[in-house]
């Protein structure tokens, strides 16, 4: 599974950080979310899917 964030869309709503804190983080002074783990293991799939679904600006895409 590959996680791709469109940083041009991200508005730091923080829903992904709540849904999948092992994969997403918001760092001080950054304008878009940081992907901590761009190829997370399968055990994180449902959390990452939740993050993608919850994103209010649909900035998160999952491949495979």
């Amino acid at each position: 599974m590959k996680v791709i964030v469109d940083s041009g869309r991200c508005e730091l709503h923080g829903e992904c950080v709540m849904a999948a804190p092992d994969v997403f983080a918001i760092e001080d002074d950054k304008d878009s979310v940081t992907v901590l783990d761009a190829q997370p293991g399968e055990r994180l799939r449902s959390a990452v899917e939740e993050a993608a679904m919850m994103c209010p600006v649909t900035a998160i895409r999952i491949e495979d």
Partner: protein
Amino acid sequence: MTTAKPDMRVLDADTYANGDPTTFGLPLEQYAYLRDEAPCYLHEFNDPMLIDRAWIVSRNADIWAVDRNSELYAADRGGVNMWKVTPLDPKVGGKPAMLTMDGAKHRTQRGVMSKAFTPGMVKKLEDKFREYASNIVDAALEKGTFNFVTDIGHAMPMEALGDVLGVPSGDREKFFAWVDTFAAPFDTRITPSFEYVMQAIFDLLGYAVELGELKRREPGEDVITQLVQAGADVISEDELMGNVALLASGAAESTRTSLSHGMHELMRNPEQMAWLREHAQDIPNTAIQEIVRIATPFTHLVRTATADHELHGQHIKEGDTVLMLFAAGNFDERALDNPNAFDLAREKNPHVSFGRGPHQCLGKHVAGLEMKILLEELMQRTKDISPAGDISYVRDAYSRGVYQLPVTITPA
């Protein structure tokens, strides 16, 4: 399935003023009718203080879709809710704010403010919030019997949001009183006449300028400082005024309303109160989200259609107002199991109280933390919370507050 068409009063102030306390104060049957039989319903208002008409969208999935499609359902073509006059609508003398912007402009301004509201930043406020909660519960225990809405529901967000926004302590009472006045234009107990609405808007916008000047002289670690430091080319003076009004109106009454409806349900459902007490050391997010769902502090927001199109067989024209009835979407059995039950452990909860699109509530993480800490404090330090009289509601179909919730608390 509901079949008989009820008299459609889902946007009448009296429906909410006279709400049934056993159905969260909400007209759940009328909502069910809309979702089942008329999921895109043209409502005529017939009130000079309200917009003329709007398409009501009531199903949960449709609200998600409308809220996320700002190309077809624009926020920047006028109108915030069913009111004709709001402090945020430049077309009627208000000032522009994030909620009435779309696209790049929205993204830039939201970017300035959102950094103060991320989950990580909010976490840093925890100690301060716990101190406020402790003081508020101290005062409440001293009184024993009191109106939960004012003594607890109002006190917590006023201090917490005062800090986040950067409103000096001595100004907080008047700052949030202006919001209460213009947010309840139809309740003469709160706002005696429409002149008061206009005056409160005028005073708040004027104070926003003063506050901006203060923050330029004495910057702090707060949102208003960030707004003025962004520079006039990013956020103009008018936009500063609009955004302060927006932040103020989102800040206090919504959390107060959630806490008050939530406490009322907890007292009605002893097994839920017991569950919350069992979790008093660390209240799970499911509990907070469930309270926010059943409270639905703002029943709706509106958008403007940017093109002719069809929805559920209805022909929506460019320029028509589309009204997302959050309160109906929050009780949609298509999206939630057993939606009319109050269940603090509810796992699947796609409620729309905060919205689900780019305009989603900026303060949702702050509000969640305030509610969590306050409820933890209350649960830990009391052994009983009971009604000391009947609940009564604010007379308003947009901002559906609780007017009185008399309670008696017993120390642990």
